[in-house]
């Protein structure tokens, strides 16, 4: 399963992140996308990885990132969201959105946030 290759063109502008945590996150999520069609698996695994790395870059729930880093995080979230819009079933799209809502509302309320990775892994299993 870990042989699934991330779609390189989806890394445009984000190449530097690949070696900086995105690759590791991607390979974690590859193990959660086995139920999807072969061609969709890398896109969904990358979407999940981008969203995890995106909120981490932004400093969500912690210290706010500097402006340029925030924008990079925003792009990660947006690209992850677009990959989901184009390739994920509706239930998975909704589950991902609810996961981000959950993490961000906890951060806004300065309350302990659920673990993003666990939420996103569960989202990939949504039906």
């Amino acid at each position: 399963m870990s042989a699934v290759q991330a779609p390189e063109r989806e890394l445009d502008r984000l190449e530097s992140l690949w070696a900086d945590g995105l690759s590791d996150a991607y390979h974690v999520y590859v193990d959660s996308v086995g139920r999807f069609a072969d061609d969709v698996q890398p896109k969904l695994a990358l979407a999940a990885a981008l969203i995890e790395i995106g909120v981490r870059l932004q400093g969500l729930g912690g210290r706010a990132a500097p402006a340029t880093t925030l924008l990079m995080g925003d792009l990660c979230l947006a690209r992850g969201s677009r990959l989901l819009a184009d390739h994920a079933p509706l239930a998975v799209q909704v589950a991902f959105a609810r996961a981000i809502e959950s993490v961000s509302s906890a951060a806004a309320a300065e309350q302990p946030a659920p673990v993003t990775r666990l939420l996103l892994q569960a989202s990939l299993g949504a039906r």
Partner: protein
Amino acid sequence: MRNRIELASTHATEFIDITGRIQAEIDRAGLRDGRVHLQSLHTTLGIAINENEPLLLGDFKSLLERLAPQGAGYDHDDFTRRFEIETDEPVNGHAHCRQLLLSAFATLLVEEGRLVLGRWQSVFAVELDGPRRRQVAVQVEGEFARRRESAEALVELELARQLMVDPEAVATPMRRLVEAGGKRIRPKLVQLTAGIGPRNDALRAAELAAAVELLHNATLIHDDYVDESTHRRGRPTVAAAEGPERAIAVGDYYFAKATRLIAEMGNPGVTSAVAEALEAICAAQIDDVALRGAYPGDRESYLRVVRGKTASLFAAACASGALLSDAAPEVVGALRRFGDLVGTAFQMADDMVDFSPSSGKPVGLDVRQKVLSLPLIYAAEDRMVGPEVRRLLAGALGDAEIGRVTELVTESDALPRVRREAEALVEEAVRELETVELDGLRPTLVDIARSAVDRVS
């Protein structure tokens, strides 16, 4: 909007004044400015506009009788030579011929909600083979005052409804931003274009429009942190009032919620259109920040940023509304291009506001933030002021320098040049609308397009 005017004539030949009935249709539709189209649905019922004076109407009847007398040996009345004759087939060759002398349709103008008619003009359905029950088809098109107002109210209600169910930590800052106003151009575009296709559902359109507005506001909350802006729409920004951590969280929450609301509408085309726009916005924001201070800059870089940062969501708003209503692909395409052009023109006009003391916004904010704007690019190219503009922009920008740059931009041909360019884009956008059928919404879309560049006089 369409309807039928039902009539019951009482004479063989009769001029039935339907002016009041047409005005009632206009009132019912809430048409403010536009046109009303009438079409007789019968071959022996004409439409005429003339004076409602009884003796004159008698003259018309006499004229019709003279021109096409009843029983004058019409072939149509010889049932032995016709096939499939109904048992109650009337002998009415004269009535058909009289109808040929009249018209079967009419288009009338409407201004300020009233039919545009001369002092003595009335509109008649002309019965030529009565008495019978008749129908005149009516369609009205143009700017619908009440529909627009009620559509806008629906979006506000939907925004309030969505914020009501959110956790206070995110809802309160977003409510402050939403309630501060804003032009609501994107939701307007969604609602208008959602009325174009056959699946026209005002409630779904309002849901999509509100989600797009929430998404737009989510991007503004992050932008304000990036730009270190203290105020937006006259109120403190989320970052300034509650700190950057809260601003990031609120932006993320509404980014996620808006995308979920859109996904839950169950139209993959709409979901993808908005998702692509959001990605374009984020990529362009990175470029925007990277290009700050890269003076004198160039028009191509500027346009690339503007098309991503602003025009992409205008285009997505137009396309997604049309997609929601199941509009034809060529209509969706034309509206997407319309939105892209109007959004670009809108941003150019916004750039000009930075140099307008009467706009109500602080002058020179873009200069202070070293944003690459088109007036600055053109001023830097200007033969007269260009050298000084370039010299000032290359150095440290204090209040004195910002004031001087603003003066130089205003003195140069930069602002008129940007305005001409924005107006040309709007006209190009309007031409896009001419290629497709828009069910009477063209005038309203044209008004919105033109208002995008009319913000700076």
